[in-house]
């Protein structure tokens, strides 16, 4: 049932121009970044060869590109792709098709979440193709790359769940997108600041708690190529919390009625 809903939502994403516009923009940005980084790398390569343990293509081109793309995906792609998932169903009064069917609210939410993640994974795969296209001519650190992509996927899951939740709060997709954008900025700036500040003052327990709400910090850890299990747990926890809140919000609306 989750996949029935997911495939329906993926299909309708591709039926609207928005998905294509987002895909195009992300590809353009990734392509530009990739070539810029690659060009810089080729210029410094002669000096790198003389170093004792030189950084390679993966560290200097592929990973920084992913890192830079994460910001763009987080601030633009996720809010835009998630905005319609619930807000549009509410505006067009189509949600009742799903809520009248023998499907639990959890399945509906997970279906939409899977659709969103599917779309984001397509974007990540297309970005990953750029460094992979050079696999024949250069040595790639696949393990490092895999960890970074894992980090990006977890970051997307956490922020996707936040955006999904915001989408249930309004019947206007645009408001949902702006709200999700605001939530992203809040989590990126405030969450990070808070965790950093608490850590500096030596309040390690509070800092660890605040780290759940600073997905960027957790992603940064993973993008160094280290699977930090606490960072992974924090990202997963944030995703779970907001998925649960989404289900709760929709159930509450059924109790409250009207809108």
């Amino acid at each position, binding site marked *: *049932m989750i996949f*029935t*809903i997911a495939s*329906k939502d993926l*299909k*309708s994403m591709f*039926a*609207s121009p928005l998905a294509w516009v987002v895909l195009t923009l992300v590809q353009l940005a990734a392509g530009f970044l990739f070539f810029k980084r690659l060009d810089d790398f080729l210029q410094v390569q002669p000096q790198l060869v003389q170093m004792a343990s030189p950084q390679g293509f993966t560290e200097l081109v592929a990973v920084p590109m992913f890192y830079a793309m994460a910001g763009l995906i987080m601030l633009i792609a996720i809010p835009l792709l998630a905005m319609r998932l619930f807000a549009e169903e509410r505006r*067009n*009064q*189509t*949600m*009742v*098709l*799903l*809520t*009248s*069917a*023998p*499907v*639990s609210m959890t399945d509906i939410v997970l279906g939409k979440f899977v659709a969103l993640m599917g779309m984001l994974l397509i974007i990540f795969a297309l970005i990953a193709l750029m460094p992979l296209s050079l696999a024949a001519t250069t040595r790639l650190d696949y393990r490092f790359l895999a960890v970074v992509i894992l980090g990006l996927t977890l970051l997307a899951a956490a922020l996707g769940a936040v955006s999904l939740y915001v989408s249930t709060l309004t019947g206007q997709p645009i408001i949902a997108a702006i709200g999700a954008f605001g939530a992203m900025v809040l989590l990126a700036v405030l969450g990070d600041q808070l965790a950093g500040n608490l850590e500096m003052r030596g309040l390690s327990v509070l800092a660890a708690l605040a780290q759940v709400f600073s997905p960027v910090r957790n992603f940064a850890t993973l993008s160094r190529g280290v699977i930090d299990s606490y960072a992974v747990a924090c990202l997963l926890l944030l995703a779970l919390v907001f998925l649960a809140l989404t289900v709760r919000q929709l159930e509450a609306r*059924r*109790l409250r*009625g*009207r809108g």
Partner: protein
Amino acid sequence: MPPSVSSSAAAAATLRAGGLTRRYGGVAAVDNIDLELNRGEVLGFLGPNGAGKSTTMQLLTGNLAPSAGAISICGIDLLESPVAAKAHIGYLPEVPPLYRDLNVGEFLDLAARLHRVPKGKRAGAVTRAIERCGLAQVSRKLIGTLSKGYQQRVGIAQAIVHEPDVVILDEPTVGLDPNQIRDIRALIRELGNAHSVILSTHILPEVEAICDRVQIMHRGKMVYANTIAALKQRHCGGSLEDVFADLTRGENA
């Protein structure tokens, strides 16, 4: 203790609701109503605008939680096991829930999937719904491009594609032309033979033509319940229109 709904009384009952109440703030939109529907029956649901008909239908289909009362569908408690109970319901809300960027066939296939029609039977179920609702010529058109009447019919098709025991239709003939109305009435009558139907409408002759029983709501309360046959007998010469006017006129808030 909510009023309990006994399932032993009549095996033929497909829907039972007891003491159903829905409050918004202090106002009761639906106030302590009882409903029973048997297999092979079409129930007409009447009432002036704002009487609580649509709210009642939302309650009966699990789209809105009641403030008090109990609902059972084919003996399954809707509030306790909503997923199992909803499998027996087909619902056309006031605004048909249609995805405008799907074509009619795709949409009905989606509706069949959502209602857990087994894979092997799905194509047959969709074809049958298309046939019954007269959608054969438009089955490959996008729903967004269809006229209001056709969209309404897609809405009805969506409600019956999984052959539910209880079909709940909120003003099913709105926006249809006279020929379509006649077809849809015949369809509802046909559905009423094997399944059971609740329909709300403002067209009183429609109720007299296709319903077995009629219930009238006014200001959230059930003010009249009778069979059409008894109604015709008692008010020989008089009509449903007179009954309706007597019960609801002049006191609309």
